[in-house]
């Protein structure tokens, strides 16, 4: 549950934005913030691990490593110290996907920094979704947008990769561009959708839909009663 009322269970020591608290074991980071009275507005969205609002940076006591997580998905642990990164500044390309003429070249117009990847792999190591971000950036540079799409479908746009990139690019925005260009420009238009659109435009169903619309509620219920 979102609420954590259990006062009797085991507690753990954590530090939130630099202040120490004791919170119930088994809480997520967000639940720990609620438990300690924080009003979380920036840094919260779906609470289901897909909106990317709750990017968080943390360390464990006695370990030099800096780690990252989505706060709604990650349980607190003894000696954890964390702060939310509500929003990471990025530069977004201004483009209309329909107007792209040579998307693979235009990548370097919109995101010239994409070609400056120094292969450090920090983006991949930081990604809370486990995406091979470094590989996706290189695939984008080489114009293999299908591979970018396959690699990055689970991207929640949290921007943690940006926070670590020594080339200062925004890999998640580059991947979004490549996926969109692949979908809009490389993939053929779906034939089953084309066929149904043609039928709709020729008015194939409008008569029957009008007839259904004109029926009384009782007639409609009878008409739709069983699966056809």
């Amino acid at each position: 549950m979102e609420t954590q009322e259990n006062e009797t269970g085991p507690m753990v020591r954590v530090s939130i934005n630099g202040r120490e608290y004791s919170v119930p074991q088994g809480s997520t980071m967000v639940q720990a913030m609620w438990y300690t009275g924080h009003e979380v507005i920036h840094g919260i969205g779906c609470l289901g691990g897909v909106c990317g609002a709750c990017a968080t940076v943390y360390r464990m006591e006695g370990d030099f490593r800096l780690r990252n997580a989505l706060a709604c998905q990650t349980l607190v642990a003894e000696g954890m110290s964390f702060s939310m990164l509500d929003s990471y500044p990025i530069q977004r390309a201004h483009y209309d996907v329909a107007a792209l003429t040579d998307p693979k070249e235009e990548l370097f117009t919109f995101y010239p920094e994409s070609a400056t990847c120094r292969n450090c792999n920090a983006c991949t190591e930081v990604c809370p979704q486990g995406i091979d971000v470094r590989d996706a950036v290189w695939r984008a540079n080489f114009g293999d947008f299908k591979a970018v799409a396959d690699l990055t479908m689970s991207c929640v746009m949290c921007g943690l990769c940006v926070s670590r990139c020594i080339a200062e690019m925004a890999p998640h925005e580059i991947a979004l561009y490549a996926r969109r260009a692949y979908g809009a420009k490389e993939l053929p238009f779906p034939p089953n959708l084309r066929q149904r659109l043609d039928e709709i435009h020729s008015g194939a169903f409008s008569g029957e839909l009008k007839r259904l619309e004109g029926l009384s509620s009782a007639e409609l219920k009878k008409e739709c009663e069983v699966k056809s």
Partner: protein
Amino acid sequence: MAELVDSFYQSVPSFDESQPPALSPEERSRLLAAFYPDYRPEGKATLKVGANKGMVVPQELANILESRSRIPAPRSLPDQPDHDVDILVIGGGGAGITAALFASMEGRSVLLATKLRVGDSNTIMAEGGIQAALGEGDSPVEHFRDTFRGGHGENDAALLSVLVGEGPEMVEWLVSRGILFDRDMQGGLSLRKGGGTSRPRLISAKDYTGLELVRVLKEDLMNAPVEILEFSPAVELVSGPDGSCAGAVLYDLDSRKNVYVKARTVILSTGGAGRLHLGGFATSNHFGATADGLTMAYRMGLPLVHPESFQFHPTGVIFPSEMAGMLITEAVRGAGARMYNRHGRRFVNELETRDVVASAIIRECAEGRGVETPSGDRGVFLDLVAIDRDSGEGTVAKRFPNIVKLMNRHHVDPTKRPILVYPTLHYQNGGVKADARTRTSIFGLLVAGEVSGGLHGTNRLMGNSLLELFVFGRRAALEAVALSRDRPTFSWKETTLSHIDRFESELVKAFPKQDLPIAPVLFPDYRRKDA
């Protein structure tokens, strides 16, 4: 926590593969009446004030409808508005983004205000897909029939006809914006099965459908000539000449000041109500889903259609408890996942409509056949292992990577272990009444998306809400463009908050001694009370 999960899974029964009992139409009705929360008498209230006076609705909904304004009396508006636009879109989910995008193409000034960030909504969480009748032997007519049957014949036929008729064109638009739906061997859009439908009709982007839609459309919105105010939920509508709508009052969550918007047309697309936790249910909804649009519209005198009807999605996670409410898409059942009670028996056909499946789960738990969790909750097993057994090793990982990722984070590998589920509050079936052009009975006020009502009847079929956002989001935009062009000019001096005064005087009469709650509530408060 891994130990707790491991010890729980030591007592999973062996599963009996026999078919579940088939239900006659009468048995279905009895099951719903006995166990579906909409039809249960407990936790309900009769509305005493407003356009739906006399109707019985969940108590939590009554609390926000029969509520006081956040703006205390005496109420006045400032001399000048902070913004003066042709079209104000309230809400930044799927319907709001779509409406703002289409409106901005027509050269009108558009302001979109939203509670959190653009895209923070129920749309982004949609896993399963969009219904579009693209299969051979399928048609918009079959889509109509299935939806009407699934909605218990309570659907508004005019709205439904528009939904099924224009749906494929909206899918064309989405494909043209570069949204990556799953494809079949011929390059067509893959079609999957959903509950209560006669044909496979769901198109999806793995189980990231909503995320994929929002990522793409949000980028387009950010690049469109639309002014955007994030962290600025609307808290009241503004009245104009002759009882029309003329704008809204927003509340800036950071400065904690009101922001006044004059608009020639307002599109209300504020979404659903899950965070009201009706009946104490967990919810699959995003943090801001508190039915603010219903509160504001009801206060202005607008009637709600089917305000008593909510969708409790059958399969919300109930264990591990920190995940409670999180949705496991119905598409897993379409793909062959099965459900078992504590005795390892199937108890309902998994592809019945959502309300029937949810009722059957509640029945199993109420009658002692549920599985108890360490924290004392109850649920039933949803077994995805069967999908890999039927369709080949790796199918679950390929089609439902999000579920696999999320569950594994909490030590439940759904390709090996069944997921414990219980119904979760998922969708507001009803909402503000509107016509097929998205017009409400108040001039200048349009609605689109989950806040609107009538389309789904009293039970929504999977995949129809995403489709609704696009079809009616676009329709709202076109209507708003025409309306904002044709509407006679009016001045800010003619605007008031008098409808709030009127509503509150009714409240005082109906509840003379009661201290009524204040709404919109904006967010649930999960903070420890004595923190």
